[in-house]
């Protein structure tokens, strides 16, 4: 018997309580998008569970009814990964925000998925530890969302992504079972597969995170350049010298203008680019390398170098960088945050091409990037009130991704594919590649109810013969590999 959405809503309300189930359209609409607003879909039902068991119950009900569902944390994603289904349930973890355990001797903490990234650090800071992944949205993004997207951040150059800081996840599988995936378990690295799966393999309900010792010392400098190219030269020189900074970030003139308007970070006026370099670690090592970094920055043509004298000065330097995305709202009515990766060495070429693209199309592009690992965040600006402007911006944004692929890079560094970039996946992967990935997905979610429509341009049912194409089946003779 087919369960209708109203019937499902009633069953969910019985399981979770009326107050945890939203069906009023006015309220539902506030959940129609996450941090990426150009994709919107009003969910049919929103649930606000307070425990792993409740999430499992919701998933079981959805599975039984054949109704799709999507998990959402704080709703800050930038690829529409948590875009709801109009015919489905949105499972919001924002009420699951308890830090369940802090185990300092073993350097780990256990948290619920709705816990805010920065709150983990706040809780363990008194013991001399922190949670290393630091997306720019760390003041609000959830750890569950970090797991789904395998979030990075400015410091992942040295410390790695979320995947490197998660030791175990309790998850609800798409058939409603609670299981724990742990790092280092014998057999396949299922935790590795789960982290970064963008909510398509299940919903995490409890996360054991690794805590990182607060470095003995941190040194931060801000170097101002006339041009992005000069800044890029400095980046290459620093990495080439064998220094592994905690972070190297670059911003161009337009993004500096936005940050300045937003948080008055006081970057050197007239800069065509600023570079933020941060080193951390044992005092003597940092002191020696910092002197070298400073020298290399100067040699590359920095016209001003500021060294943060204390935490407050460091915070101000970072404030400009971390607020850059949202700050662009000050200089443009609307914008697209792009996320692409290129080899570090291709930086000057790609930036020149983006410049040319911008000049040719008349669409302004502000650039913010994790320069150390070649992760670009071009911000494509447009006025949504102007007819056709959004489409032109979208076009430029897509062509930037093409540039990334042409230079041997990737269509996403850390924001995920979600719904926004699914259509670019075939530019990077062959049909066979995509089918292989979908087979993994079918292993977890054969019914295709768990965040369907994300990551892959053409979802397929798991019983279906992969690839209705001419020629031999892509897995023919290779099935034993999987």
């Amino acid at each position: 018997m087919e369960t209708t959405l109203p019937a499902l809503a009633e069953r969910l309300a019985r399981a979770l309580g009326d107050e945890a189930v939203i069906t009023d359209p006015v309220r539902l609409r506030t959940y129609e998008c996450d941090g990426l607003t150009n994709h919107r879909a009003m969910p049919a039902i929103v649930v606000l569970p307070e425990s792993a068991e409740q999430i499992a119950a919701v998933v079981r009900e959805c599975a039984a009814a054949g109704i799709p569902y999507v998990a959402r944390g704080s709703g800050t994603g930038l690829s529409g990964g948590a875009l709801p289904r109009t015919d489905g349930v949105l499972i919001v973890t924002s009420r699951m925000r308890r830090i369940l355990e802090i185990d300092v001797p073993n350097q780990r903490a256990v948290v619920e998925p709705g816990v805010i990234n920065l709150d983990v650090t706040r809780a363990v800071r008194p013991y001399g530890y922190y949670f290393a992944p630091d997306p720019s949205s760390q003041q609000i993004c959830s750890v569950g969302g970090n797991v789904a997207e395998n979030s990075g951040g400015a410091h992942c150059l040295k410390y790695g992504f979320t995947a490197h800081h998660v030791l175990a996840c309790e998850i609800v599988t798409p058939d409603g079972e609670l299981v724990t995936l742990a790092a280092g378990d014998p057999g396949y690295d299922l935790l590795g597969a789960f982290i970064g799966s963008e909510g398509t393999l299940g919903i995490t309900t409890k996360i054991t995170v690794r805590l990182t010792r607060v470095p003995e010392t941190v040194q931060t400098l801000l170097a101002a350049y006339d041009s992005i190219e000069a800044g890029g030269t400095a980046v290459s020189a620093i990495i080439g010298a064998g220094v592994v900074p905690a972070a190297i970030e670059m911003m161009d003139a337009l993004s500096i203008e936005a940050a300045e308007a937003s948080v008055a970070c006081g970057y050197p006026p007239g800069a065509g680019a600023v570079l933020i370099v941060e080193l951390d670690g044992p005092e003597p090592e940092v002191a020696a390398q910092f002197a070298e970094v400073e020298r290399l920055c100067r040699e590359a043509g920095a016209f001003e170098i500021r060294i943060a004298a204390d935490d407050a000065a460091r915070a101000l330097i970072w404030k400009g960088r971390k607020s850059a995305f949202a700050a662009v709202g000050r200089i443009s009515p609307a914008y697209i945050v792009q996320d692409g990766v290129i080899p570090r060495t291709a930086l000057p070429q790609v930036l020149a091409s983006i410049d040319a693209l911008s000049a040719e199309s008349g669409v302004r592009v502000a650039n913010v990037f994790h320069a150390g690992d070649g992760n670009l965040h071009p911000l494509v600006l447009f006025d949504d009130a102007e007819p056709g402007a959004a489409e032109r911006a979208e076009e430029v944004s897509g062509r930037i991704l093409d540039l990334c692929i042409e230079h041997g890079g990737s269509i996403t560094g850390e924001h995920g594919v979600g719904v926004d970039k699914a259509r670019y996946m075939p530019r990077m992967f062959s049909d066979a590649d995509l089918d292989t990935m979908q087979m993994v997905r079918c292993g977890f979610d054969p019914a295709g109810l768990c965040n369907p429509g994300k990551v892959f341009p053409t979802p397929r049912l798991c019983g279906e013969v992969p690839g209705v194409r001419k020629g031999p089946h892509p897995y023919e003779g290779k099935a034993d590999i999987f």
Partner: protein
Amino acid sequence: MTAPQDLPEPVVGSPGATPPDLLGEGELPKLLGDCVHCGFCLPTCPTYVLWGEEMDSPRGRIHLMQQHAEGTPLSGPMVEHFDRCLGCMACVTACPSGVQYDRLIELTRAEVEREHPRPLRERLVREAIFKLFPYPARLRALRGPLRAYQKTGLDRLVRRSGVLDRLSPSLAAMERLAPPLGRAPRLPERVAARGERRATVGMLTGCVQREFFPGVNAATARVLAMEGCDVIIPKSQGCCGALSLHSGRDEEARDFARRTIVAFEAVDVIVVNAAGCGSAMKEYARLLADDPTWAGRAEALSVKTKDLAEFLVDIGPRAERRPVPATVAYHDACHLAHAQGVRSQPRALLTGIPELTVREISDPEVCCGSAGTYNLLQPEAAAELGDRKALSVRATEAELLVAANPGCSMQITTALARQGTRIAVAHTAEVLDASLRGLGAGPLLRRSS
């Protein structure tokens, strides 16, 4: 009904200055367009902290406003989420995109007041609040019975019976919040500077401050005088209109604003010791911007309005600070920190007192739940927020709580009392007064409320 005595003649707006249609002229769509949906406001929003749901966050409320702007009529659920907003403006501080949420919620509240009929019971409570609190004379009339009520112990009996909670949660909240009342000395119209005069300042006495915390006003006047200011306290002053302004009762607010402008036109600086009042007066320029007769005068008043701490730091300390050996927790009132950006000044004044230690309260940006009339209109949410704040205050292990807004003081002491803790509470002015007069910490600590 005759007009209460302390109200000046009604001051009317210039003819033709009909209230501007605030939702017209594209201001709202422009303000809404500033939001990029990043969510950075969520963790500082008190109701999001409490309930973790999108529609009770600034981002969600802006979304609701957008829905309404696009034609969705105001509905019960929509209004409920607007009503639940404390107007604390923590989101304005947190927003990297410069969204003027304070303006947005004000416009929205005015729209709700105009367009959305409220149930009778709610209307009565609201009318009662707005017919009482902005009128010092009416509050004064209440003082006698309230004192008797407290002195006879009837208050404890009533609270135990729970009769008020059944009758009206708002009334029960009001009863619980009322501070213990002592004598209320009247201030003269002029207090002369001690020593060489450095400035002449006007002083706003407020409504709740004046009737329920008269000691704060007396301390404020003394501190200003000891710091070399002639203090002018116009008798003609009434309510500044803060409660009305922050509740969408724009016409009422404009009326109060005009009276306040007239009362203080003669002075060059107006010192305000209540955060909510100061923030409202700094908004007069905008409130009366469309009234040709009053716009200039309103602007002038806004410019010369200073919070007490802001003003004292501006002129710099001159009087000798004597020791006040005490550990204090300083509470940021939202309308001081978020609305006026006054955070460092009160701390600077307090740390300038010998032997006084200032402790920070965790999550200082999150509202205590007082928020003007919020603790009367949304008593449950306010109580939850009060409880959270009380826990943070207790964690500081301070012996004295310093807050610069009467609403916060009442709210936090009520919450602490619910948790079985009593703590002395003082306004920054009273701590300074104790220091300047060499009274030590004793008088401040003994008055545990």
